[in-house]
């Protein structure tokens, strides 16, 4: 039984990077099957916060993390947690498309192979994942071609497909369209509203229109604090905080 109706929840989360206090006590709950957008000016901590949700910050030297992050009812910073299993269930899509230098097919199978899925299921997984990322029609005849031969937008959808191939429950997206052209961006936004049906999505974006278009809830970050967190509609129509209003009306950032 779940203690609450959050898929993931941070409690009083602090993060120090050396001398810098990057996250200053974040309390944020992500609801299942919703898209939660994190917005704010550069350096506000939104990307850092996103990476605490699958512990990608563990890689960096002299990072200190205090507080708790719950995935269902498990604190993922508990020493007994297997971080690799966590990342299987909390997938990630990065700012720059980063397909591996191998074939499209092998890119999708990388995760399943890693987590011990039997080979006979690969064909099915590849088709399902590519369909899930709206890339199947474009690539079904060239699955053995190098993934690097795809266009930027296709590469990013491949990365989404690659993340879907291991059946995550949560999908973290770190400015997934910032390196893409407008048409590719629209395709990925369309895709995201489909993804919501099966997955819980947390997306960091610089683009406020994007947050307004696709997300159910939006959190506004500023200098390591979460200033405001509410339904997207409310944030964009009647923000409670003056700083939020300034930001979304373009007065700074």
């Amino acid at each position, binding site marked *: 039984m779940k203690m609450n109706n959050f898929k993931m929840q941070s409690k009083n989360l602090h993060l120090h990077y050396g001398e810098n206090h990057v996250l200053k006590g974040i309390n944020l709950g992500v609801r299942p099957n919703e898209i939660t957008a994190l917005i704010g000016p550069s350096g506000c901590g939104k990307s850092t916060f996103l990476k605490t949700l699958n512990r990608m910050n563990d890689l960096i030297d002299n990072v200190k993390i205090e507080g708790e992050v719950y*995935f269902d009812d498990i604190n*993922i910073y508990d020493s*007994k*947690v*297997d971080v690799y*299993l966590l990342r299987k*269930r909390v997938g990630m899509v990065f700012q720059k498309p980063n397909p591996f230098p191998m074939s499209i097919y092998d890119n999708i199978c990388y995760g399943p192979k890693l987590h011990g899925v039997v080979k006979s299921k690969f064909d099915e997984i590849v088709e399902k994942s590519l369909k899930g990322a709206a890339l199947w029609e474009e690539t079904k005849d060239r699955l053995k071609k190098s993934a690097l031969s795809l266009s930027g937008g296709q590469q990013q959808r491949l990365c989404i497909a690659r993340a879907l191939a291991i*059946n995550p429950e949560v999908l973290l997206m770190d400015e997934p369209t910032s390196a893409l052209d407008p048409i590719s961006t629209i395709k990925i936004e369309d895709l995201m509203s489909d993804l919501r049906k099966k997955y819980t999505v947390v997306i960091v974006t610089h683009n406020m229109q994007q947050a307004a278009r696709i997300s159910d809830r939006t959190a506004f970050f500023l200098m390591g604090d979460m200033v405001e967190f509410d339904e997207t509609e409310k944030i964009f129509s009647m923000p409670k905080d003056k700083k939020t209003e300034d930001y979304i009306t373009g007065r700074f950032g």
Partner: protein
Amino acid sequence: MAVSLYSGKTSKDKIEKIFKYIFFLSAIVSTISIIVITLYMVLSGGPAILEVGFIEFIFGTVWEPTSANPRFGILPMILSSIVATFGSVIIGVPLGVFGGVFISQICPKKLKPIFRTAVELLAGIPSVVFGLVGMLVVVPVVADIFNLPVGSNLFSAIVILTVMILPTIIAITDTSLRSVSQSLQESSLGLGATSIQTIFKVLIPSAKSGIMSGVVLGVGRAVGETMAVIMVAGNVVNMPKFFDSVRLMTTGIVLEMSYAGDFHRSVLFGIGLILFIFILILNILLNIFLKRAGNHYE
């Protein structure tokens, strides 16, 4: 709910740890090697040096290892090594720097890859091949030109060493010059300087640390070279004179190792130890230059 977040952690972590350990052990192989090499050189050569007497060993001028009353002075070898190295550096460095300038700045674009390949080839040719060519070409030609009965001497050794250190100096000069920023060069040209003025007033000074490290590497190669020198230097223990046969520290070791008795052999290790210390000092110098070069380009 699917898999728990706890399962599988310990076995995976164990394998990760074991491999990290294996990688670490491999990484310290080179460090351990240096320590063991140093230890062996000191243990094999140190006692002999002490027994001969450090001063007598370094400054003694008589080398009679097999006489009834053996003498072990290696000053002639040390000085010959120094003069041979110095001589090849004096000729090789300007020639090599000019060569590097030629390849990176002056030579027509189409010829560049050919020249670079040629330099790489030169760097790869084994010492014994240089020695062989030296024996058959340099030695007789030196005898001819300077009207000597035999051409196996210090001068021939310097010629061969010069050719051998050229590729190092050319290659490093070439790369250091290429890494000097284009804008620096353009601004100098824009001020009305000629390309030659730009090369000597702007490019070479900014690439100085890089070029210096090339020089130190060249010195290292010349000091350590053995087989090529044996074949052209005549190998008599003499104080260094250009047209006299000489024996260097390196060649002194090779020439007598095969028949040396126990103590004699330890003394040869003593020569090796002195050479080793010399090389270590050069390496530290090199490191300083490289560090400066690194800072410079940052």
